């Protein structure tokens, strides 16, 4: 029978199917970080349980690390916040006690877990991958079954190498045509969420297909699958093709020689069979997707750069009207106003969604030869890993950011969730390349507008949201 990509990955990892509809699924790779693992390790200790398979696990500190060079160089012991210090120290201690491989804080390979994983080849096509972080969906870009889990499940995977799951349904999101200039994977993600809503993917595995997806780089596919969770789907998927294989070929932990050949043979089968049936399907015309900007407090509250904030009178029901009214109030916006009239105070380029080298290149291309607007109070560029940082510096991108008046930071999750010192002040408005615009997400009272790196850069220069093309034409060709 014709199978979807998700069906194939599920079948290859099915330990046993039970009569009650649940199944045991084998987990190939388990990524850990400091925030959602301490209680899981504590649970193991209390129950006197060990790890099922030590080598499946890889840890890295990322959520709560400082992004300031001086604080990083001073080491963990010098971190000013004692609560954060204890959490990071606990990860180190647990990895020592349980003999889990950990990439340490100041290693060049350290970075956001979802940037580090693919970069090291620690996640690979065909794997099942879990992490105590909802953006684990990122790794579906590799043609892998990857999703976020809670801490109880982290403990379960550590102890059993399995998860108790129910099979999800299959949802095909076809993006036809080709993206226009200045339109990115982030805009596809926001357009899809705008179309199906933040609960539209609940209970589904989302497979992205179509010519616009095939043309994306691995970085772009990661951005897209990363945001699957914002559509309610635990995992996003993209089929394996030459782009996938080329990306993983030389990665440090990827198989080599004959093992690579065997792996490649299996990976090439990781695509949905012709004739396979999806439970739900939508088609979006990639040619028509414009750059997107969220205006509200949920990723589904989104409009194109040429669009407007909705009007209360246009809402379908009372719950929606109350929701819109609350969002406008929180965001400090007027109904019906043009997106291009919204003026950010802060710009954040980073996060597991958009901190890879391609993201930094696209922001730098806009910023080259420009200064950020005087109304921008703060502009942070936070590379996703030490290796991304080194690559960007080798290309001179750091100089472009610095000359534009931005800060060039050390890798970590930073202002995406504002666990560390990088956060918005109450009422501040941020053009952010991250993934969530929830109330208080980037700092208590902070206001988040989700955009692509190019759009964040353009907003930094213009002091308001503008179509990327406006800055590029102003620059008279300075944008490479």
């Amino acid at each position, binding site marked *: 029978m014709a199978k979807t990509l998700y069906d194939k990955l599920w079948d290859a990892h099915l*330990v*046993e199917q*039970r009569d009650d*509809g649940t199944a*045991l699924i*084998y987990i*190939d*790779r388990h990524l850990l970080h400091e*925030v*959602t693992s301490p*209680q899981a390790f*504590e649970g193991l200790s209390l129950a006197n349980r060990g790890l099922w*398979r030590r*080598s499946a696990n*890889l840890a890295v500190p990322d959520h*709560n690390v400082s992004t300031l060079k001086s604080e990083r160089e001073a080491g963990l012991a010098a971190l000013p916040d004692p*609560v*954060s210090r*204890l*959490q990071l120290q606990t990860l180190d201690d647990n990895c020592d006690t349980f003999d889990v*491989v950990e*990439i340490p804080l100041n290693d060049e*390979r350290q970075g956001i877990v979802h940037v580090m994983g693919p970069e090291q080849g620690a996640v*690979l096509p065909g*794997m099942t991958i879990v992490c*105590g972080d*909802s953006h684990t969906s990122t790794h579906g870009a590799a043609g892998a079954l990857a999703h976020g*889990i*809670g*801490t*109880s*499940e982290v403990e*379960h995977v550590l*102890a*059993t*190498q*399995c998860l*108790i799951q129910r099979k999800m349904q299959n949802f095909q999101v076809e993006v036809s045509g080709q993206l226009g200039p200045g339109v990115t994977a982030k805009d596809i993600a926001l357009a899809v969420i705008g179309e199906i809503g933040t*609960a539209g993917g*609940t*209970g589904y595995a989302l497979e992205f297909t179509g010519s616009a997806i095939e043309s994306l780089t691995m970085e772009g596919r990661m951005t897209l699958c990363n945001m699957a969770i914002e559509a*309610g789907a635990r995992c996003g998927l993209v089929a394996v093709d030459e782009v996938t294989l080329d990306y993983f070929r030389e990665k440090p*932990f990827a*198989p080599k020689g004959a*093992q690579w050949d*065997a*792996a490649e043979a*299996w990976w090439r089968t990781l695509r949905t069979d012709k004739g396979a049936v999806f439970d739900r399907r939508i088609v979006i015309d990639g040619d028509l997707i414009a750059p997107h900007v969220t205006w509200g407090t*949920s990723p589904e509250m989104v409009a194109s750069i040429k669009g407007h904030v909705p009007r209360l009178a246009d809402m379908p029901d009372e*719950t929606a009207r*109350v*929701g819109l009214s*609350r969002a406008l109030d929180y965001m400090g916006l007027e109904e019906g106003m043009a997106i291009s009239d919204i003026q950010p105070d802060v710009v954040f380029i980073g996060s597991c969604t958009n901190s890879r080298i391609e993201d930094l290149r696209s922001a730098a291309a806009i910023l080259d030869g420009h200064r950020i607007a005087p109304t921008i109070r703060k502009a942070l560029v936070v590379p996703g890993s030490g290796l991304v940082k080194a690559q960007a510096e080798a290309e001179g991108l750091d100089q472009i950011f610095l000359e534009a008046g931005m800060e060039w930071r050390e890798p970590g999750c930073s202002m995406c969730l504002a*666990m560390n010192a990088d956060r918005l002040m109450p009422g501040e408005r941020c053009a952010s390349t991250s993934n*969530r615009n*929830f*109330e*208080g*997400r980037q700092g*208590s009272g902070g206001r988040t507008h989700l955009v692509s790196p190019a759009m964040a850069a353009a907003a930094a220069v213009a002091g308001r949201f503008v179509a990327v093309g406006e800055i590029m034409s102003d620059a008279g060709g300075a944008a490479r």
Partner: protein
Amino acid sequence: MKPFTQHDGLVAPMDRANVDTDLMIPKQFLKSIKRSGFGPNLFDELRYLDEGQPDADNSQRPLNPEFALNSARYEGASILLTRENFGCGSSREHAAWAMDDYGFRAVIAPSFADIFCSNALKNGLLPIVLSTAQVDALFVALYAEEGFSLRIDLQACTITLPNAEQWSFEVDAFRRDCLLSGLDDIGITLERSEAIRTFERQHQARFPWLFEDIVL
């Protein structure tokens, strides 16, 4: 996990859709390495007028008088009534821990986000899905009647309204058994160790590269 069989409780409203886990427990509290003590910071940004800190004495903080859970009427509530897509966003189990620590045993909504739902069930917190019309009716009744309470019977999968009307709900059979018995997943899965080992041997033979040690 504490078992859930039958529960009688006061109902409190959270009258908005898409309540996300950031709203349930803001990031600064995720620095804790413990599982307990999150209750005083549940819905922190809605509940208090100042910004919460992990080491603050919450009893001294100014309460938001407009937030339902701060009203005397809902003191001691153990069932939360809310709207669509409750628990969306981050996978942080701290959200379920905070709900539990506050004293909630059940949440009623038209729909839940997947990861939150799974986290809740693993912590003895029962997510109950009812139709939008039923949830609307419960909101009306809740606002009309002080002390509005429900009886939840997980064995029978029913909720009983104050007027003795009974509504049934559905819950995953495996999860229901776990909640009724209070059994923990890991113990259940480890009973299948032989099956896991057998699968693992075949998996390793087929995909040997997955079993290589990571050497930094």
